[in-house]
């Protein structure tokens, strides 16, 4: 009888042991999911910010029609993206932090511009260290009926190379539909990103003698869907990968995001001198004008962006901007 009861006791002990193992596993899984969720949110914010920054630095007199003249500076986008990621994980904005971030966690960073895209990838130097190297602008090429086309996001015209002649043609005249252009551009970007990311994974697995390959692929909705809120590439934007993120997380987690942003009307920036120093501030933040009272600052010039003001030699004025 007693021996039988002893056997019976083994059952709850067995249960408890299994329970602990499963529970720990479950908690780990869920913690990892949670961390990945937070990282995804943050990468979304950072990529959005980078895309906005990219569009604000360009000339703001543009509207939808003038996209051909929008030139983007991918370096600005990368810098903003990195700053946001560093601030979110409590790192100081120093050279060393930027280097740490770009060499360890960002395998690919892509800036899709109006008529081509820039790609930042990790390159190996001779002394076996990695650095994030940008390409020059790669065009959205397309081949149809023996002619070569360079497409753009304006969805209006394209450049055509045929029989050795380079011309600008209307899309309609060439028989290329708008959805076809979007499909080509999105398809090219997703193929390129997928291929490069897998190459990077393979190189890393080879370096670390690991046989585990992350067969991640990038799917960009190709402008053919009727769903709303799907961020396909329809204008200049930014795409970023975060790989093996292990800062302040229990496991290394990954994230990918496409930025969504559009051109907006501008808030004017006033440049003035105060105490012999050139300062700038948003014009609406300056004090109002009153009859008979001397205006405290002497506005010399108006700008559309703070970057422009700074380029003209004006400094950030904490007195009015804060």
């Amino acid at each position: 009888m007693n021996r039988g009861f002893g056997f019976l006791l083994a059952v709850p002990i067995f249960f408890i042991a299994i329970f602990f193992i499963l529970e720990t596993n479950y908690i780990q899984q869920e913690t990892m999911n949670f961390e990945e969720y937070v990282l995804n949110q943050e990468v979304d914010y950072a990529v959005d910010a980078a895309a906005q920054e990219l569009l604000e630095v360009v000339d703001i007199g543009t509207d939808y029609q003038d996209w051909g003249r929008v030139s983007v500076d991918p370096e600005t986008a990368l810098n903003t993206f990195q700053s946001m990621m560093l601030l979110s994980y409590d790192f100081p904005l120093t050279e060393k932090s930027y280097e740490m971030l770009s060499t360890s966690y960002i395998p690919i960073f892509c800036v899709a511009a109006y008529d081509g895209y820039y790609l930042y990838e990790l390159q190996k130097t001779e002394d076996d260290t990695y650095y994030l190297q940008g390409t020059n602008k790669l065009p959205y090429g397309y081949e149809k009926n023996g002619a070569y086309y360079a497409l753009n996001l304006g969805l209006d015209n394209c450049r055509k190379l045929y029989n050795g002649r380079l011309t600008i043609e209307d899309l309609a005249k060439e028989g290329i539909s708008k959805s076809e252009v979007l499909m080509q551009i999105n398809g090219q970007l997703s193929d390129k990103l997928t291929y490069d990311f897998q190459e990077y994974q393979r190189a890393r697995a080879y370096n670390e003698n690991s046989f585990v390959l992350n067969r991640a692929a990038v799917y960009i909705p190709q402008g053919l869907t009727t769903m709303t809120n799907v961020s396909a590439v329809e204008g200049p934007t930014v795409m970023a990968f975060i790989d093996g993120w292990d800062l302040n997380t229990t496991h290394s987690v990954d994230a990918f995001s496409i930025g969504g942003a559009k051109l907006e009307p501008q808030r004017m920036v006033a440049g003035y001198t105060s105490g012999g120093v050139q300062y700038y501030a948003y014009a609406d933040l300056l004090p109002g004008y009153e009859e008979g009272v001397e205006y405290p600052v002497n506005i010399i010039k108006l700008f559309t962006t703070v970057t422009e003001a700074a380029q003209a030699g004006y400094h950030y004025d904490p007195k009015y901007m804060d």
Partner: protein
Amino acid sequence: MSGVVNKILGILLVLALLLLMLANVMVADQLQARRSIVAEVTNFVDEVSDSGTLTEKQVEDLYLACNSYGPVCNVTITRYTRQVNPLPNHPGDTYTTYAVANNIYNWNKGDLVKVSVDEVGYTSLSYFIYVTMKLSMRPVQFDLTGRIRQ
């Protein structure tokens, strides 16, 4: 004699099983609370970055919302001002830095709003589980940063 010992052991094991069930409840609660807190913070960051304004009431609402799911959280809102300045000795070039500002009720375009959430207190259930079984979860700790659009 050993029969008595076995019976006592059996009762203890049953108690332990009951506690473990509570542990499961605690974990489920905590995980749900975490997601809800992240959702609250994303809502807040979206609101601020889209509108470019922030009132004391919104801040109070955020504090209350983050603490209404169980874990006691310390919520901090930081404003980083974007400062674009001319690069010394390089006319035409600029550099961008971000600096912390004290005034969080006035925002400019390009500023960053950072919300940090740190768990400072247990819920009663998770404290009980921790004391009885030393089973606990990693405290809630995350930051989210958004950029002001206008």
